[in-house]
């Protein structure tokens, strides 16, 4: 673990965020963010850090499902990654990453 890989922590999200900007018309088809199913409970963990004003914890507002899901998969697959997000992402199945990304993208704001 180095400073480089920690910078990667932020770089992953900002890079995929830029790449996917404007390519997010699928959101309209998403279920309402207020569904109280598993995806809502999964997302409850995210807002423990990613809520309120933007800080070193980036805001997830406005990020598409693809951006969120891609970032989580990259954290999960970088086996030498040591950031908090790397350590967290390894605990989630692909199905849960899909569900929580869908939920967050459909939310007007991070809950």
């Amino acid at each position: 673990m180095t400073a480089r890989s920690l910078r990667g922590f932020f770089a992953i999200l900002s890079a995929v965020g830029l790449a996917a900007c404007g390519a997010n018309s699928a959101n309209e088809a998403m279920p309402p963010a207020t569904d109280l199913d598993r995806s809502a409970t999964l997302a409850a963990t995210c807002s423990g850090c990613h809520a309120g004003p933007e800080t070193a914890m980036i805001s997830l507002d406005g990020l598409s499902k693809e951006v969120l899901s891609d970032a989580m998969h990259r954290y999960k697959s970088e086996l030498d990654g040591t950031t908090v997000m790397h350590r967290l992402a390894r605990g989630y199945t692909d199905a849960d990453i899909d569900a929580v990304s869908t939920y967050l993208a459909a939310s007007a704001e991070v809950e």
Partner: protein
Amino acid sequence: MGGWIGRRGVLAGMSAAAVSSLAAPEAFAQIRTRLVVIGGGFGGATAARRLKALLPGADVTLIEPNATYMACPFSNLVVTGLRDLGAQIFSYAELSKEGVTVARDRAIDVDAVARTVVLEGGATLSYDRLVLSPGVDLRWDALEGYDETTARRLPHAWKAGAQTALLRDQLASMENGGLVVMTVPPAPYRCPPGPYERASLIAHYLKTQKPRSKLLILDAKDNFSKMPLFMEAWAELYPDHLEWRSASEDGRVSAVSAADRTVFTDFESVQGAVVNIIPPQRAGEIAVRAGVADATGWCPVNAISFESTLQPNIHVIGDASIAAPMPKSAFAANLQAKICAIAIVRMLSGQTPQPTVLANTCYSYTGPDAAVSITGVYTNEDGSLSSVPSAGGLSPLAATDSVRAAEAAQAEGWFSAVTAEAFG
């Protein structure tokens, strides 16, 4: 959980479709459910806000005796003069604005059968579901010589506020060369890595302000949260200003003498210029009154709904609950509040709460501009929490300053997020 059968009357007006799809909070706007939350900390304030947001038609009452909340996370920075105590204060104004009734009173009894809460002010509140988030009580019976009176001389500073300021002021007025003693209780207690963060910051304070002084930690345990990271930081940064003595090395303190600021281990007594006693803890007293605490002093819960396994219609979240391996942290309390609120709404609508994946992250400062973290990922599949293997873990050892600085910045980000979640 037969409790919600009694809700059928209330819910009878809802269409079957609304119940089965659970589409949106609007579907529940008509439910005039009485939801009471006891305790306005990270768990209780979050739960009250979430319940009101999900069930706008419900009566949501938060019972909290204090006018403002004094946050524990980051209070170790206050103790060591790196942060203003005012930065720890949060109000309930936003909750009131959102329609939560904030009752500034103390809950002194709960009747789980009649489903009522008695307040110190004399009122009795009825509830359909009760969320208890009372935090911890310090056990004044656990350490000979340590009680509420002697704590004014030997501060615990384990509940933020006057005690935080007291320890800060004692450190500030201590002479250069004075010995600081900190005692750490056996697990479980609020904020597992908290004593070691405090130790790091006190050692930093001594090193920079009172270099002839030293901190001695007397621990009732042989290992602790983030131990490799703290040990590494201490060896590198504070070799002359911090000594940790484990339980095996006679670190367990069994008695204190406030008059001469002395603590007693099995074989020794140590006198300090400043003595910080972190005493053993248990769930807040109201949990005992409600009958939801077991013989351990903590509250067993179903980890999917956080409903008590001892009393129906009462949910327990935060430090008071038995949620291990989830720690007693503000992050955990905030998350449990949200999971619990969702579970309550589902139960009110006749749906079974669903298992999920939960996580926790705790940051600890090892110096003013450096922090380390521990994360855990958990499932509640079978009604109890267990760690997801291969996930979670600690910050890397032997990391650069910039890695530690980045985690310090993230710690601040977490603090603004979690306080925004709880208090708006």
